[in-house]
């Protein structure tokens, strides 16, 4: 079973993503509500995929991304962004994020992206 770490400061977004992916029923989910926690969780569970919100308090998704890539250059991280964050999306791609998805996203977009990233 593939492990997915969902990082977002809002329970709502975490739940949304989980609901979308859960329908495929083959994932094991972990959650983190901020950047620091995300890095800890990553080290702890070695997830196959991380969905990372960019805008979070205390530590942004990009900083967390950098720390995760530093720890594991092969980490598969997908950024969750919204319109208006182009510069940050670019920065995250340069920092090692595999791709990004723009809020509001549809279920099929999310599923397809995740499946492709995990090559299933």
């Amino acid at each position, binding site marked *: 079973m593939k492990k997915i770490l969902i990082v977002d400061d809002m329970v*709502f977004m975490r739940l*949304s993503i989980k609901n979308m992916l859960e329908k495929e029923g083959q994932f094991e989910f972990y959650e983190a509500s901020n950047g620091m926690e995300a890095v800890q969780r990553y080290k702890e569970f070695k997830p196959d995929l991380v969905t990372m919100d960019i805008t979070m308090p205390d*530590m942004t998704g990009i900083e967390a991304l950098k720390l995760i890539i530093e720890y594991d250059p092969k980490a598969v991280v997908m950024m969750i962004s919204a319109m208006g964050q182009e510069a940050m999306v670019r920065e995250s791609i340069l920092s090692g994020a595999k*791709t990004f998805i723009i809020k509001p996203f549809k279920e099929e*977009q999310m599923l397809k992206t995740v499946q492709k990233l995990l090559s299933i």
Partner: protein
Amino acid sequence: MQDKITNEPMLDVYIFETSQLLEQLEQTVLKCEKGTGFAVSDINEIFRIMHTIKGSSAMMMFQNISVLAHTAEDLFYFLREEKPEEVDCSFICDAVFQSIDFIKVELEKIKNGDKADGDSKEIAGSIKNILSELKANCGSVNMPIDEKRREEKPKKYYISQDRVNISQYKYAYKAVIFFEDDCELENIRAFTVIHELSGTAGEICHEPENLEDTSECIEKIQKDGFLIFFQSNESYEQIKELLENTIFLKKLELTNLGEKGHENSKDTVKAAEGISKRINDVPKEGHSSANQGIISVNVSKLDKLMDLVGEMVIAEAMVTQNPDLKGLELGNFHKAARQLKKITDELQDTVMSVRMVPLGPVFLKMQRIVRDMSKQLKKEITLQIIGEDTEVDKNIIEHISDPLMHLVRNAADHGIEPPEERLMQNKDRTGVITLEAKNAGGDVRIIVRDDGKGLKREDILKKAQSLNLLPKNPEEMEDKEVFNLLFLPGFSTKDDVSEYSGRGVGMDVVMQNIRAIGGTVTVDSKPGKGMSTTLSIPLTLAIIDGMNLRVGDSYYTIPMVSIIESLRPRERDIIIDPEGREILMIRGQSYPVLRLHRLYDVKTKITCFTEGIIVVVRQEGKLFCIFADELIGQQQVVVKSLPAYIRKMKQIKGLAGCTLLGDGSISLILDAAGLADC
């Protein structure tokens, strides 16, 4: 309201989190407005909150909220990036407050299952106006800043700049990539592809050349696809696989251009990207909203838990005090029963503590009210908050929010004088309203104090006389009694009706609300010095420490907090005053006596004071005696409200509710405040 909340968990979470964010936002903006304007960390925070609200609202398809939040986000993005010097802080704050109010109203609609159909265009328009005004000012006045930014900007990232050696690659390729229609930000998708390729390829050349965030660039990629020429040592299949892994890929056309040296790749490629490093410098202080180790639980579950624990406390008493056990020698049983009691007590305390929440959020809500009112009434008022950590039961919070709002509004509207008037009286220009909370025994005291003009005894008396509300000769009345007239229904000393504190229904509503949860309200005032209203509120509604009494075949429970002492009087201590009322003398003090059997018409053989028991009870400084047949004992009881059908039939004076005793019989809980009026 609780049961109207939709069952859909996503929506619940959305509403809950968005309202929390709004509250946080409100506090931040209030802070900014009070201080000297927007600090960098504040702007970041407001930006972040608006951004988050935009995202989740768009996910839930609440376009009006999302659009409004987006507009606000744009404004704060501008503030963050351009740092314009001349910003009309209060103007912006007003706009943000309007937005907050709008979103709150929409959320309320959503919560009630209505359509969120409000029109945010007007507010969004005014925010846009602010933004364009700022932009115009910034363009002309702050030229230097603009130039400085331009200098910083060209921090270009040259892809594969380390691969200078052209002859390194074996093959040359051409690829055309089409992205899926709804993938958005095609230019950055393309940028991602280039970034991926740069690991294995060099000499990358692409069309459009400049992947800037412009709609032309995006449209071109949508229409013609993203065209790339590059060289690599990887085989066609490997490259194909790599590119096919592109997320949101719709179509890939990959052609092998043969061995290296193709014309198209002659130029040294500088796939330049204008990336200005805009690292979001996050505020180090501030609220970390999601703390690990804390979960949020639906209140209805807590209520259920509380109910169950209450039932268990009763059940425990029913077992350990079971009449069948009377007279039996049960050493081990009692040992086990004591253990059980200890655990249930602990359980009860724990559940109670879970339900306790600090008063802080309720107090903070008042800040907004004071802010709005001082603007409207052109008064200068600051709100001082003391003891916001004081905790009370969740249910109580819900009940005191409205009364507190009334009191704060009253203080701001009627209490605090306009600045000129205050100056004439040698007071500080700015009036102060203080909200204070503290623990006092089993109660929590909440005090609303202002340093305004205070209450005038004569005005109140005059008004009461004209309304025919005077209970007795005004000269006999103490100040406190005079002030208590304010709580009579329909009493208001202000003749004109204002938008805020209304038509004088306020104070008696306050009284009713606080009484409903077993609390009391007292008012104190000195003319010219201000007024203070004290709410005494029980820590919890659910479980009280009570003394059980028997009258005939009925049982009554008096809350321990209101009992002073119990005694059996001697014949000579009883006096009958000229009006026929019974008075009891205790240590030289006289107290009126209330016969429970007479009040509730209960048949009993014990009617003589010397055979029964007298319980001395205190209510707001007034002492009186309650006469019953006998004391049964002290016990923690779970308060249940009287069944609705009884309440509907008749308003029974002096009853706060009922409870079950250990033997399963029903006991009526007496309310000292109600009895005092009997």
